[in-house]
């Protein structure tokens, strides 16, 4: 039982990170119907920015309280990563809006390759380890919960609450939902569609940057190629939950996190990704539009 609860906590931590990335995928998909393949690498850029900020803080000040360091890392990562995603949208996706469906997908893949190799060229191909920032571990009735995990879950919960408020209660969120339903009609009603889409990319990137910072704090290491696997899993999570649905993305992220930690605990750690992908395939056979997704209505 304790073992099970332990895995549940590990899964929750992983799932939170996946959920944060998955929101970026699902929002972009919802609003312009494209798979933003570069999102995984945006996450990696966020983690790398956090790493560099961490090193700058270490070089400039003798000692910084961990809370402040994390906060600064997160904010700088959010700002710079948003700038990356904003630029990419402007340069690579916007000119192709209204072109055929595969065109932006190809530029997204191209951007993903370019981003990860840009980081490789500028920062070197090696793994970049940092000393552990938070190392406290609580032991509650035989279940060990590290402070890192608590931080991750709390930060994710806070962000999701903020994000829920943004999407559901503000005029910005209303504009986003309107664009998602019908872009042309939204434009006729005076919504600046281009701006709304840009903001969507910025929001997705900001969440991915937080996920990157948390990832760096949790694992303590990042490399230029680390964007792909979490990116694909987060995308899997978004599809599993029903792409386009925001609660679905979080739910999918948590599910992937649980599947992974349970599978590696009870079966084999080698095949944890295989398990996650296989469950995706099985779920989609029975629910072709994901768990919370709206079935696609086809008009002739």
């Amino acid at each position, binding site marked *: 039982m304790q073992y099970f609860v332990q895995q549940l906590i590990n899964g929750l931590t992983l799932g939170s990170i996946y959920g944060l990335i998955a929101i970026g995928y699902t929002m972009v998909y919802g609003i312009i119907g494209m*798979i933003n*393949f570069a999102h995984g690498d945006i996450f990696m850029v966020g983690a*790398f*920015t956090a790493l*560099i*900020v961490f*090193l*700058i803080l270490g*070089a400039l000040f003798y000692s910084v309280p961990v809370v402040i360091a994390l906060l600064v890392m997160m904010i700088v990562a959010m700002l*710079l990563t948003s*700038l990356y995603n904003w*630029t990419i949208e402007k340069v*690579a996706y916007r000119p*192709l809006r209204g*072109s*055929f*469906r*595969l*065109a932006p997908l*190809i*530029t997204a*893949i*191209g*951007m*993903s*390759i*370019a*981003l990860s*190799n*840009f*980081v*490789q*060229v*500028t*920062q*070197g191909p*090696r793994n*970049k380890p940092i*000393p552990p920032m938070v190392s406290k571990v609580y032991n509650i009735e035989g279940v060990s919960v590290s402070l890192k995990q608590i931080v991750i879950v709390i930060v994710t919960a806070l962000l999701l609450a903020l994000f829920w408020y943004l999407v559901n209660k503000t005029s910005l969120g209303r504009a986003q939902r309107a664009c998602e339903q019908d872009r042309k009609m939204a434009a006729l009603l005076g919504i600046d569609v281009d701006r709304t889409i840009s903001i969507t990319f910025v929001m997705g990137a900001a969440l991915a940057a937080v996920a990157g910072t948390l990832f760096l704090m949790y694992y303590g290491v990042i490399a230029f190629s680390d964007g*792909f696997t979490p990116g*694909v899993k987060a995308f*899997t999570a978004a*599809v599993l939950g029903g*792409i386009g649905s925001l609660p679905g993305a979080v739910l999918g992220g948590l599910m992937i996190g649980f599947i992974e930690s349970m599978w590696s605990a009870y079966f084999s750690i*080698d*095949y944890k*990704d*295989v398990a996650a*992908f*296989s469950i*995706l*395939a*099985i779920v*989609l*056979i029975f629910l*072709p*539009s*994901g768990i919370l997704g709206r079935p696609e209505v*086809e008009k*002739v």
Partner: protein
Amino acid sequence: MAVTTSPERDIVATPMQRATREALYAGAIALGLFVLFIGLRTDQNISNELILVQRWWLLAVVVVLTMAGRFLYVAYGQPFLANQKIVDVATGLLPESMAARFFRLPYFIAAIVTVAVLVFLAGSLDGLLGPGLAGYARFLRALAIIYALASVMFYFRTFIHAHFSALGITALALYPIIVVLVLALYGGSVAAGFQGSLKWVDNYGIQILIYVMLAWGLNIVVGLAGLLDLGYVAFYAVGAYAYALLGTQYGLSFWILLPAAGAMAAFWGVLLGFPVLRLRGDYLAIVTLAFGEIIRLVLINWREVTNGSAGISGIPKVTFFGLMTFNVSDPNYVAKVLDIATSSAYYKIFLYYLILGLCLLTAFVTIRLRRMPVGRAWEALREDEIACRSLGINTTTTKLTAFATGAMFGGFAGSFFAARQGFVSPESFIFLESAIILAIVVLGGMGSLVGIAVAAMVMIGGTEVLRELDFLKQVFGPDFTPELYRMLLFGMAMVIVMLWKPRGFVGSREPTAFLKESRAVSGSFTKEGHG
């Protein structure tokens, strides 16, 4: 109504002012993007801790270059491109096209003379100019050769356009012979010709043709049937491992295993096809991607059979239809049988013709299938699935045959790849490969065999050329390795080509089935990939 923009600014702004403004914006954005990544570099010190190395000069250079580029583009590039489309008032004609101005007879003659002089001096270049300048001279020579070839192609463009397939196939068939002949003349002996041809036949010829074949195979799934497949590399892996395992364990010949590998890959294609039949568009994309990853992960983790990440080595070479082999120690080694000098180039040249044959087979089957009911059903499925179903086409079997046929060619290419490398490991079958193949299909203009071949040549050949740019070491110092920038440039090229030609190199469609006459349809009237 509140006017939020200030109209006077846009009216007053001259192109120069606008360009300055845009350049400043671009500089600010570049500064933001690059300040941490180029301005600082994370490095390990002796005690393995991360430290920051400052590179503010590099950052300044990059930002200034970005600003200059943006300035030039807005101030001169954009007006120039706009003027290209406007009829001249005085003459009533469109301005001379850029290509016609670029390829001129005097320039052509100058290029030929440059090439001749530099080839003549080839041996003594180092002595005459010193090693630094000699690098530039060699680069200049390569540029001049490319320019001369391009001019010839430009002057004969109507002829080339009319006979493209025949000319292309002839050129491909003669390519190794020409390479060997040219290098033999240049090097002064036949042996030198064969030795020098290794790189050109292997790195350029075979490498590009493998991608052409893969892209043509994927074209059946994506271009004809409109099913977005992001895990095509899985079938490539199945074919490669089928040959690697059966060849090393049971000693079976390539000629038996080639069809077997194709059949196995086709079987996996059907296996993947069944669960995803109900999925559409992007759901299909993610499941195929997941499938590709599953295959790769199984190859890594099923160590008892696949030897894990270490891969399988010692894969037997292809034999010359069982008559001759390419192993020097064998009694029927090709050089012994034919009584010629030993060289490793024979095998490469043989492999070149083998992959060329496989490519042509793929093209032939594709062209033939398009005229058959199943091919027409694929194209109908791509254009409109509902209409397709209401006309009585069985979409299940149509999709499955598309998956199986595409996968089969992937399997062929895979077993060829294993035979060529002599070694396979899961490293060769990562998602990036799928992405590259898909990019080639889309960049070529989906469904167009010629366009796809051109795209493969440009993208794969282009990245290979980067390996040749050794002279850059003299510019940027000996630590500079152009190979590092290969994939960065590849990714950027994908974006740029897509922005420049969103419909691919060949953006029009020739319908296979027509009532009275065949009329090319502009790509913008067709839809595709709705799975």
